[in-house]
């Protein structure tokens, strides 16, 4: 049995048909764009603000995204700066406020690192340098990463701290953290919330 399909006698030659190729190319290009950019657009559309903004010591305001909920308030160390925590499925962000901190973001970053080591974590390992950052809302600050062990639970965590000092001299430390290996899956939301945060 032959399976040959003979072209129609009046069909245009193959080469002539092949030269017309813009429409399929546009389709390919559009498909590539959807695949490469679509995830960012979808993730952006899904990052909706949810619930009222969370305020810490009347200095910092952060807007939780959908899925993130308030977990607790407290102080980083006894008698130390206040913080509030938002959490979601293994990822958390602690927002610590330093009213009238003065100084630079670098100095405040060193202070926060010391408080982490004294009161929160053991086996603390911190990145060797401070990376300058600028949030989408225009605030400037520095960032460092760390890993350590929570003594109460014995959990290893990874964290990324963004420290900002406003022009009014108020300071804020945004400490996004998650169990070891999970931080990269939470950092998209965490950075979006930091980008929209307000430091009075």
């Amino acid at each position, binding site marked *: 049995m032959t*399976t040959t399909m003979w072209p129609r006698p009046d069909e245009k030659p193959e080469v002539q048909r092949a030269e017309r190729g813009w429409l399929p190319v546009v389709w390919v290009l559009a498909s590539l764009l959807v695949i490469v950019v*679509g995830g960012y657009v979808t993730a952006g559309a899904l990052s909706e603000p949810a619930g009222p903004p969370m305020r810490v010591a009347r200095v910092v305001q952060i807007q939780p995204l959908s*899925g993130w909920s308030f977990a607790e308030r407290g102080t980083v160390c006894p008698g130390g700066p206040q913080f509030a925590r938002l959490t979601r499925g293994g990822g958390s962000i602690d927002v610590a406020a330093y009213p009238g901190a003065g100084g630079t973001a670098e100095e405040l970053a060193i202070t926060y690192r010391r408080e982490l080591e004294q009161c929160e974590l053991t086996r603390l390992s911190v990145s060797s340098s401070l990376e300058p950052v600028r949030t989408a809302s225009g605030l400037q600050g520095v960032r460092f990463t760390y890993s350590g062990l929570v003594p109460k639970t014995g959990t290893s965590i990874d964290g990324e701290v963004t420290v900002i000092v406003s022009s009014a001299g108020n300071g804020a430390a945004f400490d996004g953290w998650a169990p070891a290996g999970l931080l990269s899956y939470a950092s998209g*939301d965490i950075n979006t919330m930091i980008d929209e945060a307000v430091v009075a």
Partner: protein
Amino acid sequence: MSAIARVPSPVRLTHTSFFQTRRPAFWLFVVLFVVTGTVTWSEQRLFQQLSITGWALSWGLVLLYALPVCALIYVLDLYEREPPSVLAAALLWGAVIATTLAGYANEGWGLVVSRVGGPAFAARWTAALTAPVVEEALKGLGVVVIYLVVREEIDDAMDGFVYGALVGLGFAVVEDVFYFMAVFGGRPARVFQGFFLRVVAGGLYSHVLYTGLVGMGIGYAVERRTAAPIRRKALVLGALAATAMAAHFVWNSPFLDLFPSEPWRGLDWLQVILATSVKGLPFLGFVVLALWLARRRERRWLTGVLAAETDDGGVSTEELEVLAHPRRRRAVRREMRRRAGSRAASVLHRFQREQVNLAMIRTRVATEEDPALIQQRALCASLRMALEAMPGAASAGTGRPAG
């Protein structure tokens, strides 16, 4: 020798070069290659700076795997070997364009997974939910672009498999080097560990097969030899692409995860092979079956088309019997070499190739009296005469016993 010199020129069957500057898809390829090539180049420079030894070792090891696989893919298409420039373009799409775009796309869709499912869910499932769809789509689009540049070169499912598998091989090679350097750390001992996991234990089941299957679907969808309805072609393409994505999903997911925890010692290394086999062997079996069916289909096409040529001098019934079975083709060439020398075997090889080309030409022309078809018949007939004129060569080329 004089008989060979007098044979008619072969008919120019196809575009044999990828450089089709009048086709827009060619320029799309060029632009994408230049843009993504700069990213790939920067990444490789960074790896060199991290550890030149680890980087060189990584490339050496992946080439040990890639070169034989490349050769195997090349010879899979028994009836029509594909043009080298088009094969190279397929490799480059996978190695440079698809890997770079996949890096960005996986990150974007990974954000969606963590947004919807939260970090703990995302840590377990992102690789399984994003990479199969993103990577198979990007690699499959490479086969589509190649088709748009050189439509004449993708005749059937087997051609699609060859191009798809090469796109997948290019992707696997660059991804392996990335893993050896960025995930395993680039130190020689860790590079060897990565090589064992990704190539020795898992190399049989990876991107080569996934994209080969997607390419096979594309080849089936665009082939001109059969009059299958569009709906059926779309169904086959969809089913093969879905199977490739499903296999990729299982590979990346926590399902059937039998891997030992690190560091691996003693029997752990065997357990790694067991773990990859459990995830990959069923899919490998499926691809082997699909390839067998594609080859059978290709043979049916060849015998169907050339059966109509047996009265016109291009091919005899006995020659067709041999031609349809690559193993028998090789056997009669060996027999020819033994009886009449390597020169005669070489002429027989060309004779068989031109008879396959006769089938290709017959499929592409509108009438049985097309000048290209007549010219090709004459070429085959003259090659047969040339063979018969060689001492000891008569009848060895047909598989018939010597008289």
